[in-house]
């Protein structure tokens, strides 16, 4: 299945803002995070602290992704 990944803020110092991943059916959001941790070790601190969202709703890491879903990796907020 194909998943669109979007990252923000400091994560863009390490990863492309948006990209697609081909994943096996049944892959969870946490497994995507683990894959990114392996590929981008310099981003480990912020990747581990980031929240995950699918289709604009926060999800737990155990969420099982579906084909064509849009996974957002959201670093800790620093608004205000």
């Amino acid at each position, binding site marked *: 299945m194909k998943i669109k990944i979007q990252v923000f803020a400091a994560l863009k110092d390490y990863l492309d803002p948006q990209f697609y991943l081909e994943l096996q059916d049944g892959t969870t959001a946490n497994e995507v995070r683990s894959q990114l941790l392996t590929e981008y070790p310099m981003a480990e601190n912020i990747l581990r602290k980031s929240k995950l969202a699918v289709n604009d709703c926060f999800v737990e890491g155990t969420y099982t992704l579906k084909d064509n879903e849009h996974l957002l990796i959201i670093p800790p*907020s620093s608004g205000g």
Partner: protein
Amino acid sequence: MNLITEDPIDLIKMFSEAHDPKAGAVVLFSGEVRNHSHKRDVDYLFYECYVPMAEKIIKEIIETSYTKFKLHKALCCHRIGKVGISESAVVVITASSHREEAYAANRYIIDRVKHEAPIWKQEFFSDGTHEWGHNCSCFDHQHIQ
């Protein structure tokens, strides 16, 4: 009114929308850009935002504030993009019959917006460098709900 804007926030206009005949207290909080951060001179801030979720989250925070506090009006607007020194980055206005509720609700809203809305500040310093702000790490502590 907009919850997120790229334009300067019009404090007077926003305040004028907060008046309510039942309100004896109207509290306005303006989060403004300092000219210094961690002993360094700041030129300006740039706010990145994921607007679809930020709007949804701020809307939920405001709706929840009405259920937790005796409010007549609650308004919030966060600016994004480049924000200069002394300009408002975020404004929260709460109107209640009495000041205790207006102050408490205002604090509740700004604390949650700062920590939950997907908005990120980047500080641009006078020495030409810049870095992402890190005023919150939501996984390290709990916020009052």
